[in-house]
C-alpha cells in the first residue's frame, strides 16, 4: 500500500507539470488585455508603460519559467518563513497579481476562511442530511418516503443555484427580512449574539449549496445500501437472530460507507474551489468570487495560480480516495 501511494505521488508530478503548462498556454492564447478596465482618460503611452511594468513584454517561455520558479521555489520558502520565522524568501519575487500588485498567495490565504466557512459548512450539512435519507430510502425501497426522497434529490439536481439562490433572496431577505442579503466577511464571532448574526448570514448560501450536496450523496448512499442489503451476509446476520437495527446500522451501513467515503473525498477539492455562482449571489467574497473577478480583469497570474491550486487538490484527493478505498476494503489490493 505504501509503495503504491509513493508511486502514485511520483506519477502525479509530471501530470501536474503538464496541467500547469496546458493552463499557462491556454491563458497565453487569450486575446484579453489587463489594461482594458483602465479608463479611456489614461493616455495610451501610459498604458503601454503599465503593461511593461507587469512584465507583459517578455517571451512566453521566460514568463512560464518565472511562474514555475515563483510557485514551486519561492512560495514554499515563504510558507517555511511564516512557520519558522526564517528568512529564506527575502527579496525574492513572489507570484504577483496584476490587479492588486500584491502576492497572490496572501490573497488566497485571506479568502480561504470565508470559502471554508460557507462552502465547507454546506458540504457538512449536506452530508448530514443526505446520509439518513439515503439509508432510510434504501431500507424502505419504493415506499412513499423513498419516492419523496427521490423526488427531492431530483429537484436538487435540477434547480440550478442561480435560480434557487435568487428565490431565497427575494423570499427571505427582501420580503420577509429574516436574513441579510449581503454576507459580511469582516464579521468576527466573539459571543453568542455575534454567533447568531454569523448563523443568520450563513443560512441562505449554505442551504442553497447543501441542497445539491444532499441530492448527490443521498442517491449514492441509497444505491450503495441497496447493493449491500441483498447480500448473503445480511441474511446470515438476520438468521442468527441479530436485532434489525444492528443488522442495518452496523453490518450493512459499515460496508455501504466504503464507496460513500471515497465519493465524499472526491468532492472536497470543490469546496476549496468555492462556489462561483453562490458566492457571487450572496457576496461571499471567497475563492470563487476571486477567480471570477480575476478572469474579468484579465489578471493572468491570479487565474493561473488559482486554477493550478485546484488541479493540485483534485489530483491529491483522487489519490486519497483511491488509497482510502484500499484501506477500507480489504478485497481491494493494489500491487
Amino acid at each position, binding site marked *: 500500500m505504501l509503495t503504491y501511494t509513493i508511486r502514485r505521488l511520483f506519477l502525479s508530478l509530471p501530470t501536474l507539470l503538464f*496541467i500547469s503548462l496546458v493552463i499557462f498556454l491556454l491563458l497565453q492564447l487569450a486575446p484579453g488585455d489587463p489594461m482594458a478596465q483602465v479608463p479611456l482618460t489614461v493616455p495610451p503611452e501610459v498604458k503601454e508603460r503599465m503593461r511593461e511594468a507587469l512584465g507583459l513584454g517578455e517571451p512566453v517561455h521566460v514568463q512560464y519559467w518565472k511562474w514555475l520558479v515563483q510557485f514551486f521555489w519561492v512560495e514554499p520558502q515563504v510558507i517555511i518563513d511564516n512557520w519558522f520565522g526564517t528568512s529564506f524568501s527575502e527579496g525574492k519575487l513572489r507570484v504577483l497579481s496584476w490587479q492588486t500588485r500584491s502576492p497572490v498567495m496572501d490573497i488566497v490565504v485571506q479568502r480561504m476562511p470565508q470559502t471554508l466557512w460557507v462552502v465547507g459548512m454546506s458540504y457538512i450539512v449536506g452530508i448530514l442530511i443526505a446520509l439518513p435519507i439515503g439509508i432510510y430510502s434504501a431500507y424502505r425501497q419504493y415506499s412513499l418516503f423513498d419516492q419523496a426522497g427521490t423526488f427531492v434529490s431530483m429537484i436538487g439536481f*435540477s434547480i440550478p443555484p*442561480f435560480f434557487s439562490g435568487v428565490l431565497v433572496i*427575494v423570499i427571505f431577505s427582501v420580503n420577509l427580512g429574516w436574513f441579510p442579503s449581503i454576507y459580511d466577511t469582516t464579521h468576527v464571532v466573539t459571543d453568542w449574539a455575534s454567533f447568531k448574526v454569523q448563523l443568520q448570514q450563513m443560512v441562505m448560501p449554505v442551504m442553497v449549496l447543501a441542497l445539491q450536496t444532499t441530492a448527490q450523496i443521498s442517491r449514492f448512499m441509497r444505491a450503495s445500501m441497496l447493493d449491500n442489503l441483498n447480500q448473503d451476509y445480511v441474511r446470515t446476520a438476520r438468521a442468527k437472530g441479530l436485532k434489525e437495527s444492528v443488522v442495518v446500522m452496523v453490518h450493512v451501513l459499515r460496508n455501504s460507507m466504503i464507496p460513500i467515503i471515497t465519493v465524499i473525498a472526491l468532492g472536497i477539492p470543490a469546496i476549496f474551489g468555492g462556489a462561483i455562482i453562490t458566492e457571487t449571489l450572496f457576496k461571499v467574497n471567497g475563492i470563487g468570487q476571486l477567480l471570477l473577478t480575476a*478572469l474579468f480583469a484579465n489578471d493572468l497570474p491570479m487565474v493561473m495560480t488559482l486554477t493550478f491550486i485546484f488541479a493540485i487538490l*483534485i489530483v491529491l484527493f*483522487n489519490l486519497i480516495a483511491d488509497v482510502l478505498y484500499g484501506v477500507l476494503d480489504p478485497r481491494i489490493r493494489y500491487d
Partner: protein
Amino acid sequence: MTDQNAEIETFGALKDKEPQKEPRSQWRDVWDQFRKHKGALIGGGFLLFITLFVLIGPLVWQVDPKALDIRNKDLRPVYTLLWDSQANVLWSRPFGTDNLGRDIMATLIAGGQASLAVGWAAMILSLVIGTMVGVTAGYFKRLDGILMRITDLFLSLPILPLLLVAVTLFRQPLRATFGPEGGMFILIVGIIGITSWMPTARIVRGEILALKEREFVLAARSIGTTPFLIIRRHLLPNVISPIMVSATLGLATAIITESALSFLGVGFPSDFPTWGKLLSDAVPRMEEFPERVMLPGILISLTVLSVNYLGDGLRDALDPRIRGR
C-alpha cells in the same frame, strides 16, 4: 368462446413446430419495463413536449422575439387577471412583454431553441468523444494506457474555472470567424463537450474490456473480421445502454452549464435570448415582474428534471438484471 378455444387447440397441436408466441424483441422488453416507471414516462413526455414547443412554436406563434414595441412594454401575463383584475395585460401577449416590449412567449421559445440546441449538441459531442476514446482504449491494448492517462488528466482539470477561462478568452476570435451567435454556439458546445466526455469514456472502456473476452467476439475474430467491423457490429450495440444513460446525464449537465454561463454574463451575446440569460436579465425586476424570473427558471428546472427522470427509467429498463423483476 369455448368453440374458438377448442379450434385453436386442435390447430395448435398441428403447428407444433412454430413457437407459441412471437419472440419478444429486446426493445419490447425495454419498453415494457420503461412503461412501468411512471416518472420516466412523464419525464420523457415532457421532454418531447418541450422539444415540440420550441420547434413548432415559432410556426404557430409568429411574433419576432427581437421586435421592440415600446408602447406595450411591461405587460403582465394574462393569468395575473385571476387575482388582479386591474393588471396591465393584453390577450395577444399571453405571457406579457419585457421592459422594451419584446414578447415573452416568443423570447421563451427562442431561448428554449438555443438552450436545447446547446444541450443536445454538447451531449452528442461528448458522447461521440467519450465512446470513441472508451472503445479504442478498451479494444486496443496498446492505446489503453495513454488514453486512460489523458482521461485522468482531463478529470483532474478544474472544469468550471477552465470553462470560464476558455469562454472569456476565445469568445472574440470565434465570434469574428463565425458571427456572434454561431461563434458562441460553437464555443459553448465545444467546451462543454470537451470537458464532459470522461465518465462516458470510462464506463464504455470497462464494458468493452469485459465484452472483448466473450465467445461471440472470439468467434468473429476467428473468421477474420476486421477490428473496425467487430467494434461496429458486435461491440457497439452491446454498450448502447450505458451510453444512453450517460447521454441523459450529459444533456441535463449541458443545459445547466449553458444557463450558468449565461447567468455569469459570459454566454451568448446580450441580444440573443437563452433561458439562462432571460433569467439573469430579469433578476433586477423580480419583485415587480416575478414571472420573468419564474418562467425561464421553471422551464430550465422542469426540462432537467424530466431528463433526469428519463435517465433513471432508462437505467432500470436497459439493465437486464433489473428488468423483469
